[in-house]
Protein backbone atom coordinates (compact mmCIF):
# COMPACT_ATOMS: atom_id res chain seq x y z
CA UNK A 1 0.00 0.00 0.00
CA UNK A 2 1.34 3.38 -0.97
CA UNK A 3 0.86 5.10 2.38
CA UNK A 4 2.78 2.46 4.36
CA UNK A 5 6.29 3.03 5.49
CA UNK A 6 8.74 0.19 5.58
CA UNK A 7 10.43 -1.03 8.72
CA UNK A 8 13.72 0.28 7.30
CA UNK A 9 12.21 3.73 6.78
CA UNK A 10 10.78 3.62 10.25
CA UNK A 11 14.12 2.71 11.76
CA UNK A 12 15.81 5.52 9.82
CA UNK A 13 13.21 7.89 11.15
CA UNK A 14 13.72 6.55 14.65
CA UNK A 15 17.45 7.01 14.41
CA UNK A 16 16.91 10.63 13.46
CA UNK A 17 14.60 11.02 16.43
CA UNK A 18 17.17 9.47 18.72
CA UNK A 19 19.90 11.70 17.38
CA UNK A 20 17.69 14.71 17.96
CA UNK A 21 17.02 13.57 21.50
CA UNK A 22 20.71 13.11 22.18
CA UNK A 23 21.48 16.58 20.91
CA UNK A 24 19.13 18.08 23.49
CA UNK A 25 21.60 17.29 26.26
CA UNK A 26 20.33 14.28 28.11
CA UNK A 27 21.06 13.46 31.70
CA UNK A 28 24.56 12.15 32.04
CA UNK A 29 24.81 8.54 33.09
CA UNK A 30 27.49 5.90 33.31
CA UNK A 31 28.12 4.37 29.90
CA UNK A 32 29.26 0.81 29.63
CA UNK A 33 31.31 1.59 26.56
CA UNK A 34 29.30 -1.04 24.75
CA UNK A 35 26.65 -0.44 22.15
CA UNK A 36 23.33 -2.19 21.93
CA UNK A 37 24.51 -3.75 18.70
CA UNK A 38 27.53 -5.25 20.44
CA UNK A 39 25.30 -6.73 23.14
CA UNK A 40 23.11 -8.24 20.44
CA UNK A 41 26.11 -9.77 18.71
CA UNK A 42 27.20 -11.39 21.97
CA UNK A 43 23.66 -12.76 22.42
CA UNK A 44 23.69 -14.16 18.89
CA UNK A 45 27.06 -15.80 19.51
CA UNK A 46 25.85 -17.42 22.72
CA UNK A 47 22.64 -18.57 21.05
CA UNK A 48 24.64 -20.09 18.21
CA UNK A 49 26.85 -21.91 20.69
CA UNK A 50 23.66 -23.37 22.15
CA UNK A 51 22.57 -24.53 18.72
CA UNK A 52 20.28 -21.64 17.84
CA UNK A 53 21.73 -19.97 14.76
CA UNK A 54 20.40 -16.51 14.05
CA UNK A 55 17.82 -16.50 11.29
CA UNK A 56 15.62 -13.82 9.77
CA UNK A 57 12.59 -13.17 11.94
CA UNK A 58 9.60 -10.89 11.66
CA UNK A 59 9.70 -10.54 15.40
CA UNK A 60 13.26 -10.42 16.60
CA UNK A 61 15.34 -7.28 16.28
CA UNK A 62 15.32 -3.61 17.16
CA UNK A 63 11.87 -2.13 17.61
CA UNK A 64 12.95 1.20 19.07
CA UNK A 65 16.35 2.78 18.78
CA UNK A 66 19.16 0.97 17.06
CA UNK A 67 22.44 -0.86 17.45
CA UNK A 68 24.41 2.38 17.86
CA UNK A 69 22.81 3.22 21.23
CA UNK A 70 25.42 3.36 23.98
CA UNK A 71 24.24 1.04 26.71
CA UNK A 72 24.04 2.36 30.28
CA UNK A 73 22.30 -0.75 31.58
CA UNK A 74 20.01 -3.51 30.44
CA UNK A 75 16.41 -4.03 31.48
CA UNK A 76 14.95 -7.43 30.61
CA UNK A 77 11.21 -7.67 30.41
CA UNK A 78 8.37 -9.56 28.81
CA UNK A 79 6.46 -6.74 27.12
CA UNK A 80 7.99 -3.30 26.68
CA UNK A 81 5.04 -1.27 27.82
CA UNK A 82 5.50 2.42 28.44
CA UNK A 83 5.46 1.80 32.18
CA UNK A 84 8.25 -0.75 31.74
CA UNK A 85 10.30 1.79 29.80
CA UNK A 86 9.62 4.33 32.55
CA UNK A 87 10.75 1.94 35.29
CA UNK A 88 13.81 0.95 33.28
CA UNK A 89 14.79 4.57 32.74
CA UNK A 90 14.22 5.38 36.40
CA UNK A 91 16.77 2.69 37.24
CA UNK A 92 19.29 4.01 34.73
CA UNK A 93 18.69 1.31 32.13
CA UNK A 94 18.44 2.33 28.48
CA UNK A 95 18.59 -0.99 26.64
CA UNK A 96 15.36 -2.95 26.99
CA UNK A 97 15.40 -6.56 25.89
CA UNK A 98 11.92 -7.97 25.57
CA UNK A 99 9.96 -10.98 24.37
CA UNK A 100 6.85 -9.33 23.00
CA UNK A 101 5.94 -6.40 20.82
CA UNK A 102 6.39 -2.70 21.45
CA UNK A 103 3.43 -1.45 19.46
CA UNK A 104 0.67 -3.85 20.49
CA UNK A 105 0.91 -6.30 17.65
CA UNK A 106 2.88 -9.43 16.97
CA UNK A 107 4.49 -7.91 13.93
CA UNK A 108 4.86 -4.34 15.19
CA UNK A 109 3.72 -2.65 11.97
CA UNK A 110 4.50 0.95 12.85
CA UNK A 111 2.50 2.39 9.99
CA UNK A 112 -0.78 1.32 11.56
CA UNK A 113 -0.61 3.54 14.59
CA UNK A 114 2.09 6.02 13.70
CA UNK A 115 -0.14 9.04 14.28
CA UNK A 116 -1.51 7.76 17.54
CA UNK A 117 -0.55 9.94 20.52
CA UNK A 118 0.34 6.96 22.69
CA UNK A 119 2.54 5.58 19.93
CA UNK A 120 4.23 8.96 19.64
CA UNK A 121 4.59 9.28 23.41
CA UNK A 122 6.38 5.94 23.50
CA UNK A 123 8.75 6.93 20.71
CA UNK A 124 9.43 10.26 22.34
CA UNK A 125 10.11 8.67 25.71
CA UNK A 126 12.58 6.26 24.17
CA UNK A 127 14.27 9.05 22.22
CA UNK A 128 14.42 11.37 25.25
CA UNK A 129 16.12 8.64 27.26
CA UNK A 130 18.41 7.36 24.48
CA UNK A 131 16.75 4.00 24.70
CA UNK A 132 16.76 0.99 22.45
CA UNK A 133 14.25 -1.82 22.59
CA UNK A 134 15.33 -5.15 21.13
CA UNK A 135 13.02 -8.12 20.90
CA UNK A 136 13.98 -11.76 21.25
CA UNK A 137 10.94 -13.92 20.72
CA UNK A 138 11.48 -16.65 18.16
CA UNK A 139 15.10 -17.32 18.99
CA UNK A 140 14.50 -17.63 22.73
CA UNK A 141 11.65 -20.06 22.07
CA UNK A 142 13.98 -22.10 19.84
CA UNK A 143 16.30 -22.93 22.72
CA UNK A 144 15.95 -26.51 23.95
CA UNK A 145 14.13 -26.91 26.21
CA UNK A 146 12.06 -23.78 25.54
CA UNK A 147 13.15 -21.37 28.30
CA UNK A 148 9.81 -19.59 28.27
CA UNK A 149 7.97 -22.69 29.40
CA UNK A 150 10.78 -23.84 31.65
CA UNK A 151 10.41 -20.46 33.35
CA UNK A 152 6.74 -21.10 33.93
CA UNK A 153 7.50 -24.57 35.31
CA UNK A 154 10.04 -23.06 37.69
CA UNK A 155 7.63 -20.42 38.88
CA UNK A 156 4.89 -23.00 39.39
CA UNK A 157 7.41 -25.19 41.26
CA UNK A 158 6.38 -27.97 38.90
CA UNK A 159 9.73 -28.48 37.15
CA UNK A 160 10.08 -32.01 38.50
CA UNK A 161 6.57 -32.78 37.22
CA UNK A 162 7.21 -31.40 33.74
CA UNK A 163 7.16 -34.06 31.04
CA UNK A 164 8.98 -32.70 28.01
CA UNK A 165 8.75 -35.95 26.10
CA UNK A 166 5.07 -35.68 25.25
CA UNK A 167 3.46 -33.56 22.58
CA UNK A 168 2.06 -31.32 23.86
CA UNK A 169 4.28 -31.04 26.90
CA UNK A 170 2.49 -31.60 30.16
CA UNK A 171 2.76 -31.56 33.91
CA UNK A 172 1.95 -34.76 35.77
CA UNK A 173 1.15 -33.40 39.22
CA UNK A 174 -0.11 -34.83 42.49
CA UNK A 175 -3.86 -35.11 41.96
CA UNK A 176 -5.96 -32.23 43.23
CA UNK A 177 -9.43 -30.83 42.45
CA UNK A 178 -9.59 -28.21 39.70
CA UNK A 179 -10.45 -25.42 42.13
CA UNK A 180 -7.43 -26.28 44.26
CA UNK A 181 -5.25 -26.31 41.15
CA UNK A 182 -6.57 -22.85 40.32
CA UNK A 183 -5.76 -21.56 43.79
CA UNK A 184 -2.30 -23.09 43.61
CA UNK A 185 -1.63 -21.30 40.33
CA UNK A 186 -2.96 -18.05 41.78
CA UNK A 187 -0.51 -18.35 44.67
CA UNK A 188 2.54 -19.38 42.67
CA UNK A 189 2.06 -16.86 39.86
CA UNK A 190 1.16 -14.10 42.31
CA UNK A 191 -2.12 -13.18 40.67
CA UNK A 192 -5.84 -13.60 41.26
CA UNK A 193 -6.36 -13.56 37.50
CA UNK A 194 -6.93 -17.26 36.97
CA UNK A 195 -10.12 -17.86 34.98
CA UNK A 196 -11.41 -21.42 34.85
CA UNK A 197 -13.96 -23.37 32.84
CA UNK A 198 -14.78 -26.75 34.33
CA UNK A 199 -16.15 -28.61 37.31
CA UNK A 200 -14.59 -27.32 40.52
CA UNK A 201 -14.18 -30.89 41.75
CA UNK A 202 -12.66 -32.28 38.56
CA UNK A 203 -9.64 -34.38 39.59
CA UNK A 204 -6.58 -32.85 37.95
CA UNK A 205 -3.56 -35.06 37.45
CA UNK A 206 -2.29 -33.85 34.07
CA UNK A 207 -1.99 -30.24 32.94
CA UNK A 208 -1.27 -29.62 29.26
CA UNK A 209 0.87 -26.82 27.93
CA UNK A 210 -0.58 -24.63 25.24
CA UNK A 211 -0.33 -21.06 24.08
CA UNK A 212 -3.17 -18.80 23.10
CA UNK A 213 -5.57 -20.20 20.57
CA UNK A 214 -8.00 -23.09 20.32
CA UNK A 215 -5.94 -24.98 17.76
CA UNK A 216 -3.22 -25.29 20.42
CA UNK A 217 -5.66 -25.86 23.28
CA UNK A 218 -7.22 -28.92 21.64
CA UNK A 219 -4.15 -31.19 21.73
CA UNK A 220 -3.70 -30.36 25.42
CA UNK A 221 -7.34 -31.20 26.12
CA UNK A 222 -7.12 -34.46 24.19
CA UNK A 223 -4.20 -35.72 26.26
CA UNK A 224 -4.63 -34.07 29.67
CA UNK A 225 -7.24 -33.32 32.31
CA UNK A 226 -6.90 -29.58 31.85
CA UNK A 227 -5.24 -27.16 29.47
CA UNK A 228 -3.26 -24.25 30.90
CA UNK A 229 -3.45 -21.37 28.45
CA UNK A 230 -2.50 -17.70 28.25
CA UNK A 231 -5.37 -15.32 27.40
CA UNK A 232 -7.23 -17.43 24.87
CA UNK A 233 -10.34 -16.28 22.97
CA UNK A 234 -13.31 -16.96 25.18
CA UNK A 235 -15.68 -17.29 22.23
CA UNK A 236 -14.12 -20.54 21.09
CA UNK A 237 -11.96 -22.08 23.83
CA UNK A 238 -14.49 -21.52 26.63
CA UNK A 239 -17.35 -22.76 24.47
CA UNK A 240 -15.41 -25.82 23.37
CA UNK A 241 -14.77 -26.89 26.97
CA UNK A 242 -18.39 -26.19 27.88
CA UNK A 243 -19.49 -28.47 25.04
CA UNK A 244 -16.96 -31.16 25.90
CA UNK A 245 -18.31 -31.20 29.45
CA UNK A 246 -21.89 -31.42 28.20
CA UNK A 247 -20.85 -34.46 26.18
CA UNK A 248 -19.51 -36.11 29.31
CA UNK A 249 -15.84 -35.32 28.91
CA UNK A 250 -14.02 -34.69 32.20
CA UNK A 251 -12.00 -31.70 31.04
CA UNK A 252 -11.18 -28.21 32.20
CA UNK A 253 -9.46 -25.05 31.05
CA UNK A 254 -7.32 -22.73 33.15
CA UNK A 255 -6.67 -19.32 31.60
CA UNK A 256 -4.00 -16.99 32.88
CA UNK A 257 -2.67 -13.82 31.31
CA UNK A 258 -0.15 -13.89 28.49
CA UNK A 259 2.24 -12.13 30.86
CA UNK A 260 1.95 -14.63 33.70
CA UNK A 261 2.27 -17.53 31.26
CA UNK A 262 5.48 -16.41 29.62
CA UNK A 263 7.28 -13.68 31.50
CA UNK A 264 9.12 -16.05 33.84
CA UNK A 265 11.13 -17.32 30.90
CA UNK A 266 12.36 -13.79 30.33
CA UNK A 267 13.18 -13.44 34.00
CA UNK A 268 15.52 -16.39 33.42
CA UNK A 269 17.04 -14.56 30.46
CA UNK A 270 18.68 -12.21 32.99
CA UNK A 271 20.87 -14.98 34.39
CA UNK A 272 21.63 -16.21 30.87
CA UNK A 273 22.68 -12.74 29.72
CA UNK A 274 24.75 -11.51 32.68
CA UNK A 275 27.91 -13.57 32.05
CA UNK A 276 28.30 -12.14 28.54
CA UNK A 277 27.83 -8.48 29.50
CA UNK A 278 29.96 -8.14 32.66
CA UNK A 279 30.58 -4.43 32.10
CA UNK A 280 26.96 -3.44 32.68
CA UNK A 281 24.08 -3.87 35.07
CA UNK A 282 21.28 -6.20 33.98
CA UNK A 283 17.93 -5.95 35.72
CA UNK A 284 14.64 -7.82 35.51
CA UNK A 285 11.67 -5.46 35.07
CA UNK A 286 8.45 -7.47 35.35
CA UNK A 287 5.59 -6.61 33.04
CA UNK A 288 3.04 -7.95 35.48
CA UNK A 289 -0.50 -9.15 35.07
CA UNK A 290 -2.68 -6.58 33.34
CA UNK A 291 -5.82 -7.83 35.06
CA UNK A 292 -7.04 -7.45 38.61
CA UNK A 293 -9.98 -9.38 39.96
CA UNK A 294 -12.51 -7.19 41.74
CA UNK A 295 -14.18 -8.60 44.88
CA UNK A 296 -17.66 -8.78 43.38
CA UNK A 297 -20.72 -10.21 45.10
CA UNK A 298 -20.70 -13.29 42.84
Amino acid at each position, binding site marked *: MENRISRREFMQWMNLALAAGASLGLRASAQSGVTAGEVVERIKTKLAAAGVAWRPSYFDGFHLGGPEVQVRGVAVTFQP*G*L*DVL*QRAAANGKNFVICH*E*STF*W*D*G*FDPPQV*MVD*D*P*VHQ*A*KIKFAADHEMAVWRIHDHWHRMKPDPIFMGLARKLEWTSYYDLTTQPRRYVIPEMPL*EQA*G*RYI*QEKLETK*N*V*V*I*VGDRNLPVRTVGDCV*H*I*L*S*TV*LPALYSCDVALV*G*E*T*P*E*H*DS*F*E*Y*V*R*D*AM*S*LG*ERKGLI*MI*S*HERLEEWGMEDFVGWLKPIVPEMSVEWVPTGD*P*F*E*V*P*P*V*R*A
Partner: protein
Amino acid sequence: MESRPTGRTVELLLNAAFGNPMTTARSEGLCAGDPNTEVSGVAVCYAPTVDFLRRAANEQKNLLICREHPFFLHSGVNYSYTSEGLEAAIKDDPVVAAKRDFIVSHNLMVYRYGAAWDRFRPHAQSAALAKALGFDPIKWPEEDRQRAVVCDLASETTLLALANLAVEKLQCTAPRTVGSFHARVSRIAVIAGETDPKEALARVLSDQKIDGVIAGAGGTIDEVDGAISYFRDVRATGRKIALLALGYGPSEGPGVEEMARWMQGVLPDLNIVWWPAQDPSWIPRG
Protein backbone atom coordinates in the same frame (compact mmCIF):
# COMPACT_ATOMS: atom_id res chain seq x y z
CA MET B 1 -52.38 -28.08 6.50
CA GLU B 2 -50.49 -24.78 6.20
CA SER B 3 -46.95 -25.19 4.89
CA ARG B 4 -44.09 -23.89 6.92
CA PRO B 5 -41.12 -21.99 5.54
CA THR B 6 -37.88 -23.85 5.10
CA GLY B 7 -34.60 -22.80 6.59
CA ARG B 8 -33.58 -21.60 3.16
CA THR B 9 -36.67 -19.35 2.97
CA VAL B 10 -35.85 -17.84 6.34
CA GLU B 11 -32.25 -17.35 5.22
CA LEU B 12 -33.37 -15.52 2.08
CA LEU B 13 -35.70 -13.27 4.05
CA LEU B 14 -33.01 -12.44 6.60
CA ASN B 15 -30.38 -11.85 3.93
CA ALA B 16 -32.75 -9.48 2.13
CA ALA B 17 -33.38 -7.62 5.37
CA PHE B 18 -29.64 -7.44 6.04
CA GLY B 19 -29.17 -6.02 2.56
CA ASN B 20 -27.40 -9.17 1.40
CA PRO B 21 -24.12 -8.14 3.01
CA MET B 22 -22.51 -11.54 3.25
CA THR B 23 -20.68 -11.83 -0.02
CA THR B 24 -17.23 -12.27 1.50
CA ALA B 25 -17.76 -13.58 5.01
CA ARG B 26 -16.79 -17.09 5.88
CA SER B 27 -18.36 -19.25 8.55
CA GLU B 28 -21.61 -17.31 8.32
CA GLY B 29 -25.11 -18.25 7.23
CA LEU B 30 -25.89 -21.97 7.21
CA CYS B 31 -23.32 -23.81 9.31
CA ALA B 32 -24.97 -27.22 9.64
CA GLY B 33 -28.18 -29.02 8.73
CA ASP B 34 -30.36 -29.31 5.67
CA PRO B 35 -31.72 -25.87 4.65
CA ASN B 36 -34.66 -27.51 2.88
CA THR B 37 -36.09 -28.66 6.21
CA GLU B 38 -39.35 -27.00 7.23
CA VAL B 39 -38.97 -24.75 10.26
CA SER B 40 -40.73 -26.07 13.35
CA GLY B 41 -39.59 -23.25 15.63
CA VAL B 42 -36.81 -20.68 15.96
CA ALA B 43 -34.46 -19.97 18.84
CA VAL B 44 -31.75 -17.32 18.87
CA CYS B 45 -28.72 -17.67 21.13
CA TYR B 46 -25.15 -16.48 21.58
CA ALA B 47 -23.46 -19.84 20.92
CA PRO B 48 -25.06 -23.05 19.63
CA THR B 49 -23.81 -25.17 22.49
CA VAL B 50 -24.52 -28.86 22.97
CA ASP B 51 -27.04 -27.90 25.64
CA PHE B 52 -28.89 -25.56 23.28
CA LEU B 53 -28.89 -28.16 20.51
CA ARG B 54 -30.49 -30.61 22.93
CA ARG B 55 -32.99 -28.01 24.06
CA ALA B 56 -33.82 -27.17 20.46
CA ALA B 57 -34.52 -30.82 19.77
CA ASN B 58 -36.59 -31.23 22.93
CA GLU B 59 -38.65 -28.10 22.31
CA GLN B 60 -39.01 -28.78 18.59
CA LYS B 61 -37.35 -25.58 17.52
CA ASN B 62 -35.29 -26.94 14.70
CA LEU B 63 -33.85 -23.63 13.54
CA LEU B 64 -31.12 -22.24 15.77
CA ILE B 65 -29.79 -18.80 14.88
CA CYS B 66 -26.58 -17.83 16.64
CA ARG B 67 -23.87 -15.24 16.95
CA GLU B 68 -21.09 -17.82 17.20
CA HIS B 69 -20.33 -20.86 15.08
CA PRO B 70 -21.33 -24.37 16.18
CA PHE B 71 -17.85 -25.65 15.35
CA PHE B 72 -15.96 -22.75 16.94
CA LEU B 73 -15.01 -21.07 13.65
CA HIS B 74 -15.28 -17.55 14.92
CA SER B 75 -13.45 -15.56 12.27
CA GLY B 76 -16.04 -14.66 9.72
CA VAL B 77 -14.59 -11.98 7.49
CA ASN B 78 -10.88 -11.44 7.80
CA TYR B 79 -7.88 -13.51 8.73
CA SER B 80 -7.38 -13.60 12.43
CA TYR B 81 -4.53 -15.00 14.47
CA THR B 82 -7.11 -16.75 16.61
CA SER B 83 -8.33 -18.84 13.69
CA GLU B 84 -4.87 -20.04 12.75
CA GLY B 85 -4.90 -23.78 12.13
CA LEU B 86 -8.37 -24.18 13.56
CA GLU B 87 -10.16 -25.69 10.57
CA ALA B 88 -7.51 -28.39 10.33
CA ALA B 89 -7.51 -28.91 14.09
CA ILE B 90 -11.25 -29.56 14.30
CA LYS B 91 -11.39 -31.81 11.25
CA ASP B 92 -11.46 -34.98 13.34
CA ASP B 93 -12.45 -33.43 16.64
CA PRO B 94 -14.86 -35.60 18.64
CA VAL B 95 -16.85 -32.66 20.04
CA VAL B 96 -17.36 -31.20 16.59
CA ALA B 97 -18.28 -34.63 15.23
CA ALA B 98 -20.80 -35.20 18.03
CA LYS B 99 -22.41 -31.82 17.45
CA ARG B 100 -22.55 -32.35 13.70
CA ASP B 101 -24.13 -35.78 14.15
CA PHE B 102 -26.66 -34.45 16.63
CA ILE B 103 -27.68 -31.63 14.30
CA VAL B 104 -28.17 -34.03 11.40
CA SER B 105 -29.88 -36.79 13.35
CA HIS B 106 -32.37 -34.37 14.90
CA ASN B 107 -33.04 -32.48 11.66
CA LEU B 108 -31.77 -29.23 13.14
CA MET B 109 -30.47 -26.27 11.18
CA VAL B 110 -27.87 -23.93 12.61
CA TYR B 111 -27.38 -20.53 11.05
CA ARG B 112 -24.85 -17.96 12.12
CA TYR B 113 -25.36 -14.22 11.78
CA GLY B 114 -22.44 -12.60 13.57
CA ALA B 115 -20.58 -10.51 11.00
CA ALA B 116 -23.83 -9.85 9.12
CA TRP B 117 -25.50 -8.33 12.17
CA ASP B 118 -22.39 -6.30 13.01
CA ARG B 119 -22.23 -4.89 9.50
CA PHE B 120 -25.91 -4.17 9.45
CA ARG B 121 -25.96 -2.44 12.85
CA PRO B 122 -22.37 -1.80 13.94
CA HIS B 123 -23.38 -0.39 17.32
CA ALA B 124 -26.15 -2.80 18.18
CA GLN B 125 -24.16 -5.18 20.35
CA SER B 126 -22.49 -2.45 22.38
CA ALA B 127 -25.64 -0.31 22.64
CA ALA B 128 -27.63 -3.28 23.88
CA LEU B 129 -24.95 -4.04 26.46
CA ALA B 130 -24.99 -0.43 27.66
CA LYS B 131 -28.78 -0.43 27.93
CA ALA B 132 -28.78 -3.75 29.77
CA LEU B 133 -26.56 -2.10 32.37
CA GLY B 134 -28.95 0.85 32.58
CA PHE B 135 -26.93 3.37 30.56
CA ASP B 136 -28.07 5.54 27.68
CA PRO B 137 -25.52 5.75 24.89
CA ILE B 138 -24.72 9.20 23.57
CA LYS B 139 -26.04 9.65 20.02
CA TRP B 140 -23.54 8.78 17.36
CA PRO B 141 -23.37 9.72 13.68
CA GLU B 142 -24.92 7.21 11.31
CA GLU B 143 -21.74 6.99 9.26
CA ASP B 144 -19.73 6.01 12.33
CA ARG B 145 -18.87 2.35 11.86
CA GLN B 146 -17.12 1.86 15.17
CA ARG B 147 -18.52 -0.80 17.42
CA ALA B 148 -18.22 1.10 20.67
CA VAL B 149 -20.81 3.38 22.25
CA VAL B 150 -20.14 6.08 24.81
CA CYS B 151 -22.26 6.73 27.88
CA ASP B 152 -22.24 9.48 30.49
CA LEU B 153 -23.12 8.01 33.87
CA ALA B 154 -25.71 9.76 36.01
CA SER B 155 -23.10 10.06 38.72
CA GLU B 156 -19.48 9.14 39.14
CA THR B 157 -18.95 5.59 40.35
CA THR B 158 -16.24 3.00 40.79
CA LEU B 159 -15.30 0.14 38.55
CA LEU B 160 -16.12 -2.19 41.43
CA ALA B 161 -19.66 -0.84 41.55
CA LEU B 162 -19.96 -1.37 37.80
CA ALA B 163 -18.63 -4.89 38.16
CA ASN B 164 -21.25 -5.66 40.80
CA LEU B 165 -23.90 -4.12 38.55
CA ALA B 166 -22.79 -6.40 35.72
CA VAL B 167 -22.89 -9.44 38.01
CA GLU B 168 -26.45 -8.55 38.95
CA LYS B 169 -27.73 -7.62 35.48
CA LEU B 170 -25.78 -10.02 33.27
CA GLN B 171 -24.91 -12.81 35.71
CA CYS B 172 -21.29 -12.57 34.66
CA THR B 173 -19.08 -14.70 36.87
CA ALA B 174 -15.52 -13.66 36.14
CA PRO B 175 -15.23 -9.88 35.75
CA ARG B 176 -11.71 -8.47 35.68
CA THR B 177 -10.26 -4.98 35.58
CA VAL B 178 -7.24 -3.29 34.04
CA GLY B 179 -6.38 -0.62 36.55
CA SER B 180 -7.66 -0.42 40.07
CA PHE B 181 -11.24 -1.50 40.64
CA HIS B 182 -11.47 1.50 42.95
CA ALA B 183 -10.95 3.81 39.96
CA ARG B 184 -13.78 6.33 39.61
CA VAL B 185 -15.41 6.76 36.24
CA SER B 186 -18.04 9.05 34.78
CA ARG B 187 -17.88 8.69 30.98
CA ILE B 188 -17.46 5.17 29.70
CA ALA B 189 -16.92 3.51 26.37
CA VAL B 190 -18.90 0.28 26.11
CA ILE B 191 -17.55 -2.39 23.75
CA ALA B 192 -19.30 -5.74 23.45
CA GLY B 193 -16.91 -8.55 22.65
CA GLU B 194 -13.18 -7.99 22.57
CA THR B 195 -11.34 -4.70 22.93
CA ASP B 196 -9.36 -5.49 19.77
CA PRO B 197 -8.53 -4.27 17.28
CA LYS B 198 -6.32 -1.72 18.98
CA GLU B 199 -6.92 0.85 16.25
CA ALA B 200 -10.62 0.88 17.06
CA LEU B 201 -9.97 1.21 20.77
CA ALA B 202 -7.55 4.04 20.08
CA ARG B 203 -10.18 5.93 18.05
CA VAL B 204 -12.70 5.56 20.84
CA LEU B 205 -10.25 6.74 23.46
CA SER B 206 -9.46 9.85 21.44
CA ASP B 207 -12.36 11.31 23.43
CA GLN B 208 -10.25 12.42 26.35
CA LYS B 209 -13.29 12.66 28.64
CA ILE B 210 -13.64 8.90 28.61
CA ASP B 211 -12.28 7.61 31.90
CA GLY B 212 -13.65 4.09 31.83
CA VAL B 213 -14.14 1.21 29.41
CA ILE B 214 -16.54 -1.68 29.77
CA ALA B 215 -15.70 -4.50 27.39
CA GLY B 216 -16.38 -8.17 27.04
CA ALA B 217 -12.88 -9.53 26.98
CA GLY B 218 -9.31 -8.55 26.37
CA GLY B 219 -7.91 -8.86 22.93
CA THR B 220 -6.65 -11.67 20.80
CA ILE B 221 -7.14 -10.35 17.28
CA ASP B 222 -3.92 -8.29 17.40
CA GLU B 223 -2.03 -11.49 18.11
CA VAL B 224 -2.62 -12.05 21.80
CA ASP B 225 -3.39 -8.99 23.81
CA GLY B 226 -2.82 -6.01 21.56
CA ALA B 227 -5.56 -3.71 22.73
CA ILE B 228 -5.02 -4.52 26.40
CA SER B 229 -1.31 -3.74 26.05
CA TYR B 230 -2.25 -0.54 24.26
CA PHE B 231 -4.63 0.31 27.08
CA ARG B 232 -1.86 -0.20 29.64
CA ASP B 233 0.26 2.24 27.67
CA VAL B 234 -2.60 4.74 27.62
CA ARG B 235 -2.63 4.55 31.40
CA ALA B 236 1.15 4.88 31.52
CA THR B 237 0.91 8.23 29.73
CA GLY B 238 -0.74 9.47 32.93
CA ARG B 239 -4.33 9.33 31.79
CA LYS B 240 -6.79 8.39 34.53
CA ILE B 241 -8.70 5.57 32.93
CA ALA B 242 -9.54 1.97 33.80
CA LEU B 243 -11.20 -0.97 32.08
CA LEU B 244 -13.71 -3.57 33.19
CA ALA B 245 -13.82 -6.85 31.24
CA LEU B 246 -17.11 -8.63 31.87
CA GLY B 247 -16.49 -11.84 29.95
CA TYR B 248 -17.02 -12.26 26.23
CA GLY B 249 -20.29 -14.17 26.31
CA PRO B 250 -22.04 -12.03 28.94
CA SER B 251 -21.14 -8.91 26.98
CA GLU B 252 -22.73 -10.25 23.80
CA GLY B 253 -25.94 -11.57 25.35
CA PRO B 254 -27.99 -8.34 25.31
CA GLY B 255 -27.10 -7.72 21.67
CA VAL B 256 -28.16 -11.22 20.73
CA GLU B 257 -31.49 -10.58 22.42
CA GLU B 258 -31.77 -7.38 20.38
CA MET B 259 -30.99 -9.33 17.20
CA ALA B 260 -33.75 -11.81 18.09
CA ARG B 261 -36.22 -8.93 18.48
CA TRP B 262 -35.20 -7.54 15.10
CA MET B 263 -35.55 -10.94 13.46
CA GLN B 264 -39.02 -11.29 14.94
CA GLY B 265 -39.94 -8.11 13.07
CA VAL B 266 -38.53 -9.50 9.83
CA LEU B 267 -40.28 -12.84 10.34
CA PRO B 268 -43.58 -11.98 12.02
CA ASP B 269 -45.19 -15.32 11.21
CA LEU B 270 -42.59 -17.25 13.18
CA ASN B 271 -42.35 -17.31 16.95
CA ILE B 272 -38.73 -16.44 17.70
CA VAL B 273 -37.40 -16.93 21.22
CA TRP B 274 -34.10 -15.81 22.71
CA TRP B 275 -32.17 -18.18 24.95
CA PRO B 276 -29.72 -16.41 27.28
CA ALA B 277 -26.41 -18.18 27.90
CA GLN B 278 -24.76 -18.81 31.25
CA ASP B 279 -21.17 -17.68 31.65
CA PRO B 280 -19.16 -20.93 31.94
CA SER B 281 -16.12 -19.36 33.58
CA TRP B 282 -15.26 -18.69 37.20
CA ILE B 283 -12.38 -17.46 39.31
CA PRO B 284 -11.30 -19.07 42.59
CA ARG B 285 -12.17 -16.59 45.33
CA GLY B 286 -11.69 -16.18 49.01
